[in-house]
C-alpha cells in the first residue's frame, strides 16, 4: 500500500512537473515570440523613422542638437496657433532637445523696427514671418538669407508646379528666392446686403465679372446717403484703399497703368496711370461716394458699423466679418477700361542674416508648408488660401461655404486668371512716403491737378530708384 501510494505520488509529482514544464515552455515561447515581434516592429519603425527623417530633414543638423530656436511674428496667437502646433510637433519628433521660443503678436507698426534692430545688433531670430511688401528691401541689403540652394537640395512638396508662380516671383530678388509663401490672399469687393436691400438696389454680380467701374460707381452713388437728414453723409457707397499704393494697384492695372514700366522706371507720367489716380480722386471728391480718411482702420470700422456698402478688400477679412451683425456678400472686382485685375498678396517665411540655425529653420519652413494637415489647420483658422494650389479646397470650411458660396469662384478660380502681386521693389517704403507726399493732397484734400501731382511723384521716384541703383 505504502509503495503504491508512493508510486502514485511520484507519478502525480511527475505529471505536475511535466505540466509546469509545459506551461513554462509555452511562456518562454510566448515571451520569445513577443520579443521577436517587438524587435521586428522596432526595426521596421526605425527604418520608417529613418526614411521619415530623411524626408523632412537636410541631414546636416544632428538629431540631438541642443539649442533654442526663435521665431517672431506679428500675428496673434489665434492666427499663429495652428502653425505653432505643427512646428512644435516637428521639433518633438526630430529634434527633441531643441527649445522653441516664439515671440508672436508683435504690433505690426513695431514689427519691422524690431526685426531690423535684431538683425543689425547680431541677435536675429532663427525664423521670421515676413510680408511681401518688405522682402525686396531686406534682401537687397543682405538682411535675409537666399533660400534657392536649400530649395534645390530639398524642395518643398509640390515645388514649383503646385505653387503660385506670381507669388514666388514676388519673393525673388536678383535671381534668388528669399521667402517661401505661407498663405495667399486675393481681392474682392465685399458688400453689405442689408444696405443694398434697404435701398432697393440690386447686388453686384457674384458669379460673373460682368460689371464695370461705371456700374460700381453707379451703385455707390445710389448707396451714399444722409440717412438722418442732418446734411451730413452717414452711409457711404464705396471704399478702395488709397492709404497704401498696393491697396489700389488693381484699379491702376485695370486702367492699363502701372507704378513701374517693364524696364523698372517710374510710370506715373503714363496717361493710363494718371487716369486711374484721377478715378480714385473722383471717388472722394467728384462723386463723393467714399469716406475721406488716411486710415484703413476707419474704413474697417465703417463697414463693421454697417455704414459702408462696398469695400475693396481681400479674403482674409472673411474671418473678421463672420461675426458681423448684418448680411454681407462677396463680388469679384469689376472690369476696368483695360480689363480686370485682382489683388494678390501674402506673407512668407524667411531666414534672417546671422540666424544661428539656418538649416533647421529651412527644415521648419518646409515641414510647415509641406504637411497637408498643417496647411489645413492654417487655412481653417485664417480664411486665407494655402500657398499650394492642390490644397485650396481645404480653405473652405463649412461655415465659410455657407456664408460665402462663391468663395472658390472669386478667390481661387478668378484669382488664378486675373490676380497680380503689386511690384514691391527695392525702396518700396520710400515710394510709400512719396505716394503720401504727392497724392495725399489729391485723395484727401481734393487737389485737382492730378497730372501735376503724378509728374512730381514720378520725378521724385526716379531719384529714389536712381539712388538705390548707385
Amino acid at each position, binding site marked *: 500500500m505504502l509503495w503504491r501510494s508512493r508510486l502514485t505520488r511520484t507519478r502525480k509529482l511527475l505529471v505536475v512537473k511535466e505540466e509546469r514544464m509545459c506551461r513554462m515552455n509555452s511562456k518562454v515561447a510566448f515571451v520569445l515570440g513577443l520579443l521577436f515581434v517587438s524587435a521586428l516592429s522596432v526595426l521596421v519603425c526605425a527604418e520608417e523613422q529613418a526614411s521619415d527623417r530623411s524626408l523632412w530633414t537636410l541631414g546636416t543638423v544632428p538629431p540631438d542638437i541642443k539649442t533654442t530656436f526663435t521665431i517672431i511674428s506679428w500675428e496673434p496667437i489665434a492666427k499663429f496657433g495652428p502653425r505653432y502646433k505643427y512646428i512644435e510637433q516637428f521639433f518633438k519628433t526630430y529634434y527633441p532637445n531643441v527649445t522653441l521660443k516664439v515671440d508672436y503678436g508683435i504690433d505690426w*507698426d513695431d514689427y*519691422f*523696427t524690431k526685426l*531690423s534692430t535684431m*538683425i*543689425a545688433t547680431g541677435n536675429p531670430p532663427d525664423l521670421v514671418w515676413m510680408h511681401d511688401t518688405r522682402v525686396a*528691401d531686406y534682401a537687397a*541689403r*543682405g*538682411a535675409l538669407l537666399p533660400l534657392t540652394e536649400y530649395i534645390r537640395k530639398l524642395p518643398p512638396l509640390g515645388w514649383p508646379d503646385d505653387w503660385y508662380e506670381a507669388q514666388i516671383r514676388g519673393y525673388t530678388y536678383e535671381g534668388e528666392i528669399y521667402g517661401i509663401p505661407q498663405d495667399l490672399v486675393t481681392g474682392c469687393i465685399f458688400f453689405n446686403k442689408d444696405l443694398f436691400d434697404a435701398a432697393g438696389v440690386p447686388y453686384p454680380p457674384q458669379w460673373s465679372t460682368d460689371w464695370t467701374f461705371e456700374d460700381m460707381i453707379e451703385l455707390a452713388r445710389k448707396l451714399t446717403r444722409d440717412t438722418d437728414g*442732418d446734411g*451730413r453723409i*452717414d452711409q457711404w457707397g464705396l471704399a478702395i484703399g488709397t492709404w497704401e499704393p498696393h491697396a489700389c494697384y488693381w484699379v491702376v492695372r485695370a486702367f492699363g497703368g502701372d507704378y513701374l514700366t517693364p524696364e523698372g522706371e517710374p510710370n506715373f507720367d503714363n496717361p493710363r496711370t494718371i487716369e486711374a489716380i484721377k478715378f480714385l480722386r473722383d471717388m472722394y471728391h467728384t462723386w463723393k461716394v467714399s*469716406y*475721406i*480718411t*488716411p*486710415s484703413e*482702420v*476707419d474704413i474697417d470700422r465703417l463697414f463693421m458699423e454697417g455704414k459702408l456698402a462696398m469695400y475693396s478688400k481681400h479674403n482674409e477679412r472673411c474671418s473678421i466679418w463672420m461675426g458681423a451683425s448684418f448680411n454681407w456678400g462677396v463680388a469679384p472686382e469689376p472690369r476696368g477700361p483695360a480689363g480686370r485685375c485682382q489683388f494678390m498678396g501674402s506673407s512668407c517665411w524667411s531666414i534672417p*542674416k546671422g540666424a544661428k540655425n539656418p538649416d533647421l529653420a529651412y527644415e521648419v519652413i518646409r515641414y510647415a508648408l509641406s504637411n497637408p494637415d498643417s496647411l489645413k489647420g492654417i487655412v481653417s483658422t485664417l480664411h486665407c488660401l494655402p500657398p499650394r494650389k492642390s490644397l485650396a479646397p481645404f480653405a473652405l470650411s463649412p461655415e465659410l461655404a455657407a456664408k460665402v458660396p462663391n468663395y472658390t469662384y472669386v478667390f481661387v478660380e478668378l484669382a488664378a486668371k486675373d490676380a497680380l502681386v503689386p511690384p514691391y521693389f527695392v*525702396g518700396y*517704403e*520710400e515710394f*510709400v*512716403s512719396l505716394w*503720401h*507726399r*504727392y497724392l*495725399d*493732397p489729391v485723395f*484727401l*484734400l481734393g487737389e485737382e491737378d492730378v497730372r501735376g501731382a503724378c509728374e512730381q511723384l514720378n520725378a521724385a521716384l526716379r531719384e529714389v530708384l536712381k539712388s538705390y541703383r548707385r
Partner: protein
Amino acid sequence: MKSKVSYTRLMKSEALYGYIFIAPNLILYAIFFIFPALMTFVLSFTSFDLFSPPSFVGTAQYVRLFNDPLFHKALLNTLYFALARTTLTIVIAFWLALLLNRKLFGRALFRTMHFLPYVSLLSAVALVWTWLFATDGLINTVLGKIGIKGPMWLTSKIWAMPAIIVMSTWKDLGYSILIFLAGFQTIPSELYEAAMVDGANWFQRVRNITLPLSTPAIFFAVVTTLIGTLQDFDQFYFMTKGGPAYATTTLSYYIYEVGFKWFKMGYACAASVILFLLVFLFTLIQWYARRRWVFEG
C-alpha cells in the same frame, strides 16, 4: 592743524562713498546715453543701412539735409508744434493749478482727474482722440449741433497739427499742474495776508505775488515741456503717420521714417544731431534768459 587733516580725510572718504553711490547710475548713463549719442554723431558722417558696415562720407549727409525740403518741412513742423504746445500747456496748466490750489469741494478728485491723462498710455489716448477727431466723430457731432461744420481734422493740412497740439496739451497738462502746485506751496502765506490787508483782490494777488514767485516753477516747466515736445513722436505715429502730405511730420518722426523705413541710418543720425542741437540751443537760450525773468530771491 590736526583737525584740518582729519576734516580733509573725512571729505575724501565722503567723496569716495558719494562716487560709489552714483557709480551705477553714471555707468548706466554712459552705456545707454553717452555712448549711443557719440555713436549717433560718428554715424552721421557715414552712409549706413543698418545691415552693412558703415562707409565714411564726410559731411555729405549734412549737405543733403540742408537741401532736403522734407527736412525743412519737418523742422518747421517741429518748431510750430513745440512752441504752440509749450505755450498752451504752460498757460492752461498755470490757470488750472491756480483753481486747484483753492479750497474747493472735491479738490483731491479734480487734481487726480487732471493728472490721469498724464499717466495713461499714449497709444490708447491717441486712438480715442483719433475717434473724437474723425469726420463723423464726437467733436464734429457736437459742433454740428451748434451749427458749425467741423473740419476733417486729421486729414486736413491746416487742422491736423492743431488737432494733435490739442490732444498733446490735454495729455500732458497734469505734469505741469503738479509742478505749479508744488511751486505754490513754497510761497509764504504772510505775503498773501499782507496783500489782503492792503486790499488786493484775488487777481492782484495772483499777478503780484503768485506769478513772480512761481517763476522758478514756470521756468522748470517750460524747459522740461519744450525739451519733451521737441522730441514728441508717439502721437504723430499713432494719429497721422506724419500726414497728410507731411503736414504733421516732425523731426522725430522723420528720423524714424528715414532710419527704420528707408534704412538710411546715416542720414537719420545726421538729422538726430540737428535735433540734439536744436534742443540744446533752446535750453541754452532759456538758461540765459532766466536771469531776466526768473525770481531767485
